[in-house]
């Protein structure tokens, strides 16, 4: 029997497990999946927890519930990949050998990367909403916070779900307005990027909206440390921003074992060196990588993992059959951006094309408006939770094409003519 080993049972790993168990001959291939945490978190839901919108039951379910029959699940942490010997060493002692390895170990915020972030104010006046516990603690804090300076700070790029910090700012603004205390809260969005967003057309729309909602933006701020005594964040160029409540988006890193196994770019961020089109490791032909674990210049988001999944399934089948890899990933990404007051925007883009206005997913019809702000976009975001649990994780086809389409979008040239 041949062994396919999947490391990581999150969004990407679970989806690939379902797709590949269907495609690979059960008499020929055993599939094993390894993960350290038996809980599956609906990560897009973390954003809503601080504002009391989602409950625990809606966003946490057992991982095993989404695994198909006829596979082996191992609950343990990966210590190291020995790619030469084709063996994965686990923390509790077991060693798993493989013929084909799929790395889907994702990325996670590491607050320890920024001095002072995990200091005396951590989880008292400094919070991160990128994990379930942190999001819940922030919900408790916001419930009876009396107001002051709310600072939202991105430590470094890339981060998981790149629009989430902006969405947090919009939702917080609406939350405090709803509590009739908006005048008591000063909201500042502090980012290492030169604007609210890196892609120009989307950035212009979002910056306009931030201004309209009286949310200040401090761009080009690259955090060096948090000064707990003075309640300030300090940048490398000595700029400071005062806070009463800091919502930190810490440096994101891939799994430590990716770096320790020598599969990363040696920059201590632990993202595996991956061909951005085929999703094959650039070092070992029998290793493939998907989702947040790659070093692709694409968003770290579930939607990206989903589009990658279609390409990767075909490429893995090609590889097993000894054929050249036939599919190419174009960097396709899309996501909803919550803008508060029950409305949202949608963006759709790839490696080459930035987010542009238009109608989506049906060109000219919608019902979603790209870069527009509408209630139906917000309903789309809420409806996505059902699709995530019931379709995406189970590897079922989605009505959105893997390759990004220009149909229904206004081109950059058209936008320039209008301006």
């Amino acid at each position: 029997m041949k062994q396919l080993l999947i490391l990581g049972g999150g969004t990407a790993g679970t989806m690939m497990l379902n797709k590949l168990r269907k495609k690979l001959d059960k008499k020929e291939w055993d599939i094993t999946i390894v993960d350290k945490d038996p809980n599956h978190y609906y990560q897009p839901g973390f954003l809503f927890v601080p504002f009391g919108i989602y409950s625990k039951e809606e966003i946490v379910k057992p991982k095993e519930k989404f695994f198909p029959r006829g596979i082996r699940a191992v609950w343990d942490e990966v210590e190291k990949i020995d790619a030469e010997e084709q063996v994965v060493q686990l923390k509790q002692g077991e060693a798993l050998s493989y013929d084909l390895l799929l790395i889907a170990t994702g990325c996670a915020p590491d607050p320890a990367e920024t001095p002072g972030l995990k200091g005396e104010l951590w989880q008292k006046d400094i919070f991160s909403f990128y994990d379930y516990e942190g999001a819940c603690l922030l919900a408790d804090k916001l419930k009876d916070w009396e107001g002051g300076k709310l600072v939202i700070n991105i430590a470094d790029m890339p981060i998981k779900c790149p629009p989430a910090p902006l969405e947090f700012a919009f939702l917080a603004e609406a939350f405090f307005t709803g509590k009739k205390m908006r005048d008591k809260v000063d909201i500042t969005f502090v980012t290492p990027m030169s604007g609210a967003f890196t892609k120009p057309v989307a950035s212009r729309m979002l910056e306009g909206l931030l201004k309209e909602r009286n949310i200040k933006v401090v761009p080009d701020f690259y955090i060096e440390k948090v000064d707990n005594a003075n309640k300030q964040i300090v940048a490398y160029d000595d700029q400071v921003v005062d806070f009463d409540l800091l919502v930190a988006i810490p440096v994101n890193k891939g799994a430590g074992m990716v770096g320790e196994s020598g599969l990363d770019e040696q920059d201590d961020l632990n993202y595996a060196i991956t061909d951005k089109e085929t999703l094959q490791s650039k070092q070992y032909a029998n290793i493939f990588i998907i989702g947040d674990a790659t070093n692709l210049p694409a968003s770290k988001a579930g939607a990206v993992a989903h589009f990658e999944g279609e390409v990767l399934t075909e490429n893995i089948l090609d590889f097993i059959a000894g054929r050249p890899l036939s599919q190419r990933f174009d960097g396709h990404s899309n996501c909803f951006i919550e803008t508060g007051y029950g409305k949202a925007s949608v963006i759709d883009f790839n490696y080459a094309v930035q987010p542009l206005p238009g109608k989506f997913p049906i060109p000219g019809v919608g019902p979603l408006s790209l870069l527009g702000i509408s209630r139906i976009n917000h309903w789309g975001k809420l409806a996505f939770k059902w699709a995530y649990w019931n379709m995406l994780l189970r590897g079922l086809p989605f009505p959105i094409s893997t390759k990004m389409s220009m149909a229904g979008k206004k081109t950059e040239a058209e936008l320039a003519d209008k301006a």
Partner: protein
Amino acid sequence: MSEILIAGKNISVNEEGYLTDMTQWNESIANEIATELNIELGPKHMEVIAYLRDQCEKGGTLNIRRIGKSGIVDIKSFYKLFPGGPLKNASKIAGIPKPASCI
């Protein structure tokens, strides 16, 4: 994209003033762009610029964190050498494209 005269040479630049062809670059061009940005280039600046050009040629990712780990310059000094946006300014002076952040 347009052509402008820098240090006596016609150079192609994009709308933000970044060179569109890194082979057109030379040290006098670097000095002239630096002067516009109120930066006076010394040997340490040139060391960083050489590193950026080398990484760019190799197709490596350029970001502040990576430069801080390069052994050439730490992040604090990088900010002192190229005040404002160090990576943007250093890239402009080095004649390489503006490094794209991923979203």
